[in-house]
């Protein structure tokens, strides 16, 4: 945090003209952002490539936490803490629960990636190249001035949220309620599932196969 403040002060000392800020003379904030960004990106890459399912969730924590730091560096404090609370705190925990409940294998599973991998890689790389090209082409001279009061302090965000965004905020609460009800309905064990023998037999057989598989391992 102190590092960020120092870089902000250094940036304030320099001229505000955008042309004078070259990529070859980065400020301290930029260096910090770059480093944290690299870590975040690396954690994300590992998340989508690791063969250990539980590790993927943990690497996801890393990536999301890195993003929270990036928010802080962008002076959006409130978002950063919300990020930590909701994503790192609850979403990842939920995902871990999901992995456990679906009896995801602990340790390396060779089939974590589907056969679609190379197509996916091609599409992702092409999309990344296109996006990066466009973004760099469009914003290579745009300068964000981080001096002055924080753009995303709790006070500013709260004032904006409850002055200008009250109605969507309340609508969002209804959406959350609907999601809650939906999740309950979906999770409840339907009685019809257990009555038909074919449907009841299939998961049992699959589970027995899975236990056999783990036994062999």
């Amino acid at each position: 945090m102190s590092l960020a403040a120092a870089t902000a002060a250094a940036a304030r000392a320099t001229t505000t003209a955008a042309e004078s800020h070259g990529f070859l003379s980065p400020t301290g904030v930029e260096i910090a952002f770059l480093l944290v960004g690299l870590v975040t990106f690396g954690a994300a890459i590992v998340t989508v490539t690791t063969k250990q399912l539980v590790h993927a969730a943990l690497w996801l924590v890393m990536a999301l936490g890195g993003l929270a730091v990036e928010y802080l560096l962008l002076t959006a404090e409130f978002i950063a803490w919300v990020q930590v609370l909701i994503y790192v705190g609850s979403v990842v925990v939920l995902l871990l629960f999901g992995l456990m409940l679906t009896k995801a294998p602990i340790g390396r599973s060779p089939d974590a990636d589907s056969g679609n991998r190379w197509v996916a890689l091609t599409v992702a790389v092409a999309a990344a190249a296109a996006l990066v090209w466009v973004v760099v082409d469009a914003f290579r001279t745009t300068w964000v001035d981080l001096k002055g009061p924080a753009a995303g302090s709790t006070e500013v965000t709260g004032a904006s949220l409850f002055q200008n965004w009250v109605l969507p905020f309340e609508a969002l609460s209804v959406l959350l309620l609907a999601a809650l009800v939906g999740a309950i309905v979906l999770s409840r064990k339907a009685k019809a599932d257990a009555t038909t023998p074919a449907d009841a037999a299939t998961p049992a057989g699959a589970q027995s196969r899975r236990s056999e598989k783990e036994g062999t391992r």
Partner: protein
Amino acid sequence: MHLAYPAVLSALLFCTGLYGVLARRNAILVLMSVELMLNAVNLNLVAFDVWLSRTARDTLHSGQALTLFTIAIAAAEIGIGLAIVLAVYRGRGTSDIDKLRDTAEGPAPDDSRGDGTEEAPVTGDEKAEATA
């Protein structure tokens, strides 16, 4: 700070999540990748909001508000998504996305229904042989 840094990072994260969505077999890992994509969008929103609030004296803070909404919706989405994955797992004994092929064109025209349930044991056996 150059706006290009958060924008490029956001693009890269998004494409990483994209790769995960397309390449991962486990449905929960796909959900994780979706979270990555959402977060990439969030980063973009926050960065542009900060830029606009300084450059254009924008006091609406729509980027931050939308980020909060996205986080809330993502939370709801992950809840619903997990509920669906669990329901599918209960019904079929697997949460592998590439085995949910009920919409596939079957080998015979009138045999499209049992495709998903009939192919699943075969691939499951192959998987067991591979692990053994």
